[in-house]
């Protein structure tokens, strides 16, 4: 069977007598399709990949998709092998979908942690909040000398938890 799928360097990524592509992804050849079109499918059922079809346009799409998939697999493989603690040691048995899912989860977790670490430095200190509360109490007492039934409430970022640390740098920038 001819498999006209090539990688970006022009070489075939699979020969028909091989059971896997690039030694990583299992190839399943369907016995139900006519031999004239000779398609095959890669990996699990979420990633069908027609290697050769009757339509030239579809073949081109399949070709592009395969090259992208292979390039993604290569990237993931490099990342995986470079990490000694990675759980994906048996790479060949994990489908590309699972790899992508893990990769995305790791990326999201890393991003969340980075954002959290960045933001934690911007939060106001406990002393700063205490001083603000003391100033509020003081002003409330002062205002009660003219309006005994009054209450002085804080609003805005100080009250809703979205306040940033009052840094000297910020004031310099304002100036």
């Amino acid at each position: 069977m001819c498999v006209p799928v090539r990688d970006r360097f022009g070489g075939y990524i699979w020969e028909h007598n091989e059971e896997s592509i690039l030694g990583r992804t299992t190839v399943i050849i369907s016995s139900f399709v006519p031999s004239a079109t000779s398609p095959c499918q890669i990996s699990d059922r979420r990633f069908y990949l027609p290697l050769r079809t009757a339509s030239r346009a579809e073949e081109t799409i399949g070709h592009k998709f395969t090259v992208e998939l292979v390039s993604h697999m290569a990237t993931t493989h490099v990342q995986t092998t470079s990490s000694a603690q990675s759980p994906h040691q048996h790479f060949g048995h994990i489908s590309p979908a699972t790899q992508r899912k893990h990769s995305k989860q790791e990326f999201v977790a890393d991003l969340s942690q980075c954002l959290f670490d960045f933001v934690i430095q911007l939060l106001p200190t406990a002393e700063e909040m205490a001083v603000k509360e003391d100033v509020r109490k003081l002003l409330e007492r002062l205002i009660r000398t003219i309006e005994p039934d009054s209450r002085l409430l804080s609003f805005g970022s100080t009250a809703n938890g979205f306040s940033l640390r009052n840094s000297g740098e910020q004031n310099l920038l304002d100036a």
Partner: protein
Amino acid sequence: MPNHIEHRLNIQSDMDLCCLIDSDERLAATDLVTMLGDLLERGAYLTLLFNIPCLTILLETKFHVKPLPHARIPIVKLSLDPSPGLPLGIACDIGFENRLALENTRLLMCYAMIDPTRVRTMVLFRKSGILQSHSILKYPRVDQSRCGVNAGQ
């Protein structure tokens, strides 16, 4: 008024305060702002008599007061110079009967309470970026927390 005090009173306040008066017979906001401005200017040193431990050092410096009774929303702008107890000073705005602002604050606090870690992280990150661009590009300032929440959505 010296330039640095004028500048201090014109910058973004560190703290927004709203005075609610529970009695039915209350003065107009304009009159209250004028009276409070007078009181704070005259009685700044008297505040030392209020024995609040944290503020005895703080109040060795004088309040700088700027009442704005004829603004659309009358407020008193108030600032304290930096002192050993408060290295960066503090600036606050005091308004009256601004219940809409209190309600907005309550709503934003509710959003933050839904998922404190993620919502606060997202909003503070966006807000820090917005503040940075305002400082650099001199955009007019807007409600940054609300802006941060909107930008994060």
